């Protein structure tokens, strides 16, 4: 059955740094007659601490996430492959040794849907009726494509926009080098990976760089800006919302 209402999990990066992405998600969902609710006590899924190996700190944060969302119903939609992968796969394993917490985590985990996954797989939509003449280089973020297995949905949505073309180049599926705290603890190495990513994106030769994770996009845009090179870098929701304007 087609869902009528979703719970939005904007994710920390969108909430704190890129709120406009959250509102563009809402715009797209409203266009599809989906009602959006935002649980106000949500903060973060705990991924930064989990990935870094600070399991106990991650548990505290994850528990607040479960608290915030288990009172609600319907799909939990997030504009991030990384955070969705965390909730879908690692939230339950975080509580593996506590059956009752694990059951709660699994229940919440089963409801998480990454933005493009929700549109294409759950709503069966690839053409929103948008128009935007633009050539796009799509960066498949690692946790979205390899973690969640969402490998075609974002491209289908981009191709569904009238006038939009997808450009590609070799090694488009290579990591951009962000990796959360990795980009701080291994900054030069992360910088070298970013360099490789930027040259790959430039080879694709597109006007815009679109992805489904603000972590990667902040990293990529930060890299281009550092070299005083302007690139239009957008979350998929921003691109789709723009095509509807």
């Amino acid at each position: 059955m087609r869902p009528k209402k979703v719970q939005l999990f904007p994710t920390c990066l969108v909430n704190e740094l890129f709120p406009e992405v959250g509102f563009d998600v809402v715009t797209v969902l409203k266009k599809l007659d989906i009602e959006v609710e935002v649980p106000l006590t949500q903060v973060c899924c705990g991924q930064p601490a989990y990935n870094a190996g600070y399991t106990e700190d991650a548990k505290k944060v994850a528990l607040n996430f479960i608290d915030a969302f288990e009172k609600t119903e319907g799909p939990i939609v997030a504009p991030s492959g990384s955070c969705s992968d965390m909730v879908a796969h690692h939230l339950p394993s975080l509580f593996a040794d506590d059956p009752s917490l694990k059951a709660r985590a699994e229940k919440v985990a089963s409801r998480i849907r990454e933005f493009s996954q929700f549109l294409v797989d759950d709503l069966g939509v690839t053409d929103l009726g948008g128009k935007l003449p633009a050539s796009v280089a799509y960066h498949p973020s690692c946790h979205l494509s390899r973690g969640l297995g969402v490998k075609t949905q974002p491209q289908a949505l981009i191709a569904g926009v009238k006038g939009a073309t997808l450009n590609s180049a070799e090694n488009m599926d290579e990591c951009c080098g962000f990796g959360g705290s990795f980009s701080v603890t291994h900054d030069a190495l992360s910088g070298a990976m970013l360099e490789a990513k930027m040259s790959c994106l430039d080879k694709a030769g597109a006007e815009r760089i679109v992805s489904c994770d603000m972590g990667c996009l902040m990293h990529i845009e930060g890299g281009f800006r550092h070299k005083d090179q302007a690139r239009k870098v957008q979350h998929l929701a921003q691109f789709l919302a723009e095509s509807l304007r």
Partner: protein
Amino acid sequence: MSAQDTFVQRADEALADHDLGRSIRHVTGLLDQRRREASASVPDFEALKDRARSAKLGMLADLEGNLLRFEEKIKANGGHVHWAKDAEDANRIILGILEKSGAKKVVKSKSMATEEIELNHALEAAGVTPVETDLGEYVAQLKGDKPSHIILPIIHMTRQAVADTFNEKIGTHASPDVAQLVEIARKVLRKEFETADAGITGANFGVVDSGALCIVSNEGNARFVTSLPRLHIAVMGIEKLVADLDDLSVFLRVLARSATGQRLTVYSNLIWPGREANDQSGPREAHVVLLDNGRSDLLNSKAAEILACIRCGACLNICPIYKAVGGHAYGGTYPGPMGSILSPALGAKKGSELAGASTLCGACKDACPVKIDIPRMLQYYRTGEKFGKREGLVKGLSFYLFGLLASRPRVFGAFGRLLRTIAPTGNGWIKVGPWLPFGWTRHRTLKLPAKKTFIAQWKEKAGHG
């Protein structure tokens, strides 16, 4: 060779060498491309990978029993079996065998297990001369260098560097021409084969139901090493077992395709260590040294899965970090993603910091022919549960504070509002240069926090109806 003692230092050193970076990226890219094409040419490569994985995990489920059956078969064939609990033990056993047989010169085919136990050092210290006969290993040995890739030992060297090594170490006048360099090595090594007292190899697979060893190579040297000298010693990690020849055929198919994109390695040597009374050919004496060196401990841990690794190198070739810094930065015998899991566990138990050297991008898991979940184990190592944590107080404190604040929505919100009154906010980006205490700003411009969070704006909108 680097003398730096942390991964970050060694990585930074490697990053400064742009030629190295370019050439490693080029060669690994080529191999990865070949792997993708070779995998795609098999109708159901995924199913083959699944079969290989379950065959390996099946072997590991009763590793002790399988090893005992393997030992029994080898003994019945006339071969000798030794159990080595660690590197020191293995070297002692090997030296004992060589001494008893009066062997002074040893030819070796490529073996990561003997790299792991640093056998060449032990041999030299005991007055035995080891000669590596795999072309890359031979060059590395001449140069006094270590392999930086598990199947392409001198991926970090150019043709010119190889020619220079030959000219300097064995007095040739070689130009950087591959055919010429190969011809030089062929001539030198042919003499070594003829005059060696013993041959030492690793083993890619040990076949339990017949006591056979399978050694694959593209150069044919393993065949000389195992047939010309009167004594053969194989050093094999205890995890290298396969049940039978049927399973072996599955592994040979996935191994060659994943390693180099070949359909089959040029030489797949199948030998049965031991000698029947009326045998006229082959070594008179054959020994198999079963090497533990931390593997049993791994088997009983949450990282047991890494023992299914068949050393194809696909995870190295696809890893954006290996591609950027090469193998020496990892500082151990096994580099790249598989090395980050194996190295801390084997012998010296060094290298637990390697788990941090990853973005958890998962490319290694995708490329692995036995579908080993390397990112999961990297995360597990990061918890410090197995090998401890080697991190500063700052990181620990940061995550403690993160845990404290991000689990309390009201405190977190208030904290954010407070920070916004003192820190710059807005839609812009700031280029702050390298003076911030963390490295982010050396390579990237920093995004400012939004004036108001999404949730704050959402609340306001709801409040205004």
